[in-house]
């Protein structure tokens, strides 16, 4: 569907239903539905829903737009409606941080699309490649720079993530799942369009993606706030996608991982929203020992972290596997090693998350009185968790859909035989067998184990632990696994990685800006004599310069 806007013949806008757009639209629908499920638990103003609707509408606009202008409009509306949605809970600083980065993203996207327009006078995706090729080298680099800045900010790639963590941490618990699952995906969508339509930008993406995964993983490890931890985990997960998009055949893995990440982040954030709802606590150090109070939530979080860590036999492994083999295919071996390294490091924060909330000992008296979260929290988790289990069992299930997208983008299709298997050029695996074998072995071992004569008895008191012959009591500090990973800072290399360098950088930038402003402001101090002098001098200089 094409139409023109502004009564100008040279701007053609277009909306188009493509398989890629449908894929992301599906994710939007899924996220919206699941998030709205938990909405009745919160008392929200009507304006929240109004803005939320606007946001969802803008997401659809982004997804179905087939030219960069509409895309940009959707992008900007998304940023602004998110701003107002965030304003319900965010502190002034965090909010300001968010919007500045969002504006920087939008404006650099703006510059980029205008540069794209300047050569072929078209915003359409189809013409993007030609427009790009028509640019001179310098402009091409400038264009790529601006485009990638815009995308990286939205993705929260490391260095551009300064806003993201605070925004995630302080946003409303209802909104965080959406923020993580959907809004960052829009950055991904932009990146996919960029990579598929314009240019691969191989090395930039590879380096940025790898740095993002590794640094964000180690940053996640040292967090104590649940939402901050998950925010960094989101960054890291998107880093995998950025990395894999740097290779020619990475699109399949990227889409697969996008799907999995959306599902799992919805699951995790809804889960912790439930925990926060019943406990009113947001820090790992304030929680603990909830496993027997919230058993269902525990299982869902467990499923979530298994997927997040990319463990077989659930869906997370399928997407990780796709990413690995794509990188292997492109012979990006060290990159692959780096990605796997960060994937292995992710086990720490994943364990820290589940330990801090559910395992160990309760850190407060009132934690021993909480009840299971309301069913409105559980219902979407049932849905998401079963989807993840199904994808884990039948990893080939989504391949035909991804192939449709790849076909549309003129990329190499993924091979597909049955829905149980996932096949790449290097290896294949059968999700059904893995799941079946694990389930079978587990059940068999469990049965044999239960039949043993040795009686399992359960202490009545949680303090009955082997504790060097001492007796712990309420006052004993037993729940300290939540600070796990702090000791890693003692390792020089990791300390280097996990430094708050982006904070220093942006603070420095802000400070310099303020000084500069302070100097410039002197012009407007109201001293007429000074001003006239400046004015005359400036004009003479300019004129002499311009008349040469």
């Amino acid at each position, binding site marked *: 569907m094409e139409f023109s806007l502004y009564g100008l013949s040279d701007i053609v806008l277009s909306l188009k239903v493509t398989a890629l757009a449908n894929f992301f639209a599906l994710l939007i629908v899924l996220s919206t539905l699941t998030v709205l499920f938990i909405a009745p638990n919160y008392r929200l103003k009507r304006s929240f829903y109004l803005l939320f609707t606007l946001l969802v509408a803008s997401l659809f606009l982004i997804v179905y737009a087939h030219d960069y202008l509409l895309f940009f409009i959707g992008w900007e509306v998304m940023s602004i409606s998110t701003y107002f949605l965030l304003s319900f809970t965010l502190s002034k600083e965090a909010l300001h941080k968010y919007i500045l980065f969002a504006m920087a993203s939008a404006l650099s996207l703006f510059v980029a699309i205008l540069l794209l327009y300047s050569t072929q006078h078209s915003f359409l995706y189809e013409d993007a490649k030609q427009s790009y090729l028509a640019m001179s080298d310098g402009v091409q680099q400038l264009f790529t720079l601006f485009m990638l800045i815009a995308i990286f900010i939205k993705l929260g790639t490391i260095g551009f993530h300064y806003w993201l963590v605070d925004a995630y941490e302080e946003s409303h618990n209802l909104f965080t799942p959406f923020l993580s699952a959907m809004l960052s995906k829009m950055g991904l969508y932009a990146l996919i369009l960029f990579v598929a339509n314009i240019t691969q930008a191989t090395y930039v993406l590879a380096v940025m993606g790898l740095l993002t995964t590794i640094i964000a993983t180690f940053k996640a490890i040292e967090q104590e706030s649940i939402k901050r931890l998950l925010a960094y985990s989101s960054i890291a997960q998107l880093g995998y996608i950025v990395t894999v998009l740097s290779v020619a055949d990475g699109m399949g893995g990227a889409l697969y991982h996008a799907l999995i990440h959306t599902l799992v982040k919805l699951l995790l954030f809804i889960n912790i929203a439930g925990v926060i709802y019943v406990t009113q606590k947001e820090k790992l150090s304030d929680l603990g020992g909830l496993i027997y109070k919230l058993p269902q939530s525990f299982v869902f979080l467990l499923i979530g972290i298994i997927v997040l860590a990319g463990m077989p036999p659930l869906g997370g492994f399928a997407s990780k596997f796709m990413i690995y*083999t794509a990188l292997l295919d492109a012979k990006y071996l060290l990159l692959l*090693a780096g990605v796997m390294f960060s994937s292995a490091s992710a086990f*720490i924060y994943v364990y820290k998350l589940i330990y801090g909330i559910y395992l160990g000992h309760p850190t407060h008296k009132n934690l021993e009185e909480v009840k299971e979260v309301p069913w409105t929290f559980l219902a979407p988790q049932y849905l998401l968790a079963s989807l993840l289990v199904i994808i884990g069992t039948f990893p080939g299930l989504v391949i035909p859909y991804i192939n449709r997208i790849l076909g549309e983008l003129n990329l190499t299709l993924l091979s597909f035989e049955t829905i149980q298997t996932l096949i790449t050029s290097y*290896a294949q695996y059968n999700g059904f067998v893995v799941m079946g074998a*694990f389930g079978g072995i587990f059940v068999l071992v469990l049965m044999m184990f239960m039949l043993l*004569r040795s009686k399992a008895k359960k202490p009545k008191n949680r303090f009955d632990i082997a504790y060097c012959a001492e007796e712990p009591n309420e006052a004993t500090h037993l729940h300290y696994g939540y600070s796990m990973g702090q000791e890693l800072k003692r390792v020089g290399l990791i300390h280097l990685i996990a430094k708050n360098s982006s904070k220093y950088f942006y603070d420095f930038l802000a400070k310099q800006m303020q000084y500069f402003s302070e100097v410039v402001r002197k012009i407007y101090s109201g001293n007429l004599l000074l001003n006239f002098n400046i004015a005359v001098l400036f004009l003479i200089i300019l004129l002499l310069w311009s008349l040469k």
Partner: protein
Amino acid sequence: MILFDLLFMLLVAYITGFLYYGLYRNITARFQRRLGPPVWQSFLDSIKFFSKEESISHGWMFYLGPVIMMSGAIMTLFFIPLFHTGESFKGLSSYGNLFLVLYLLVLGALGNALAVGASGNPFGVMGVTRGLSRLFALELPFYISVIALISVSGSADIVCIAASQTEWNAFAYPLLFIAALFSFVGMMGQAPFDVVGAPVEVYSGPASEFSGKFLALLMSQSAIFTFAKLVLMVHLFLGGASGFVELLAKSFGLFLFVIAFGAMYGRFKTPQSIDFLLKVPTSIAIVGLILATWS
């Protein structure tokens, strides 16, 4: 037929694993100038624990932890073929690949970590923390070596990697092998990387709350798991195996090396071991990878 295969593999792993463990204790004792226990001592220990009258369980997650760990070990075993030639004793390896096995290697430990957390014993969690912190540093050189091997042999299938070696990978790519060996020593829980279960430091770490049959199950899985890891190394670096004798010889040789290594060194602190692993073996592995794939 496949069920018989699997059962047989399990049996072999169980027996060999315990045998190796007995030998391990015996040989370590000889290193320390003592007689050491009989070879079957580990087996006796495990049966003793199975026959305890009672075992303390801290809830269902605690109960399931060792079961998950055992399942993980058996899964690992099943997805690694015993022999790279012939038809039998391939297990489920045709349904999986090396990446899957790499993840299965940690699956059990993570499952058990949940149980440790559920037990509420801070020493257990301390051990888990050490283990997880060490894990990524341990895996990095191993991953690099494995990736290089996959890339060189053109497949992530273990059988293919084993079969594609004209000369042993250990000799063809010595740097990769050395780097992987460092990791392997750590994976086997040997000094100098044995920070996890350090008895006098963290009260035997993750195992501190396991008693009776739980401990017994952990011991059995350890035996099976050790064998599985040895077989994996044999296939990756030592040219695979086509018969029991070859398999036992190669794996025992490797095992001997590991325990000798372990008996000779003291223990690193956690940050030290991470630092060391991230520096020395990783650098070796990177150089090895570049040398191996340079064309």
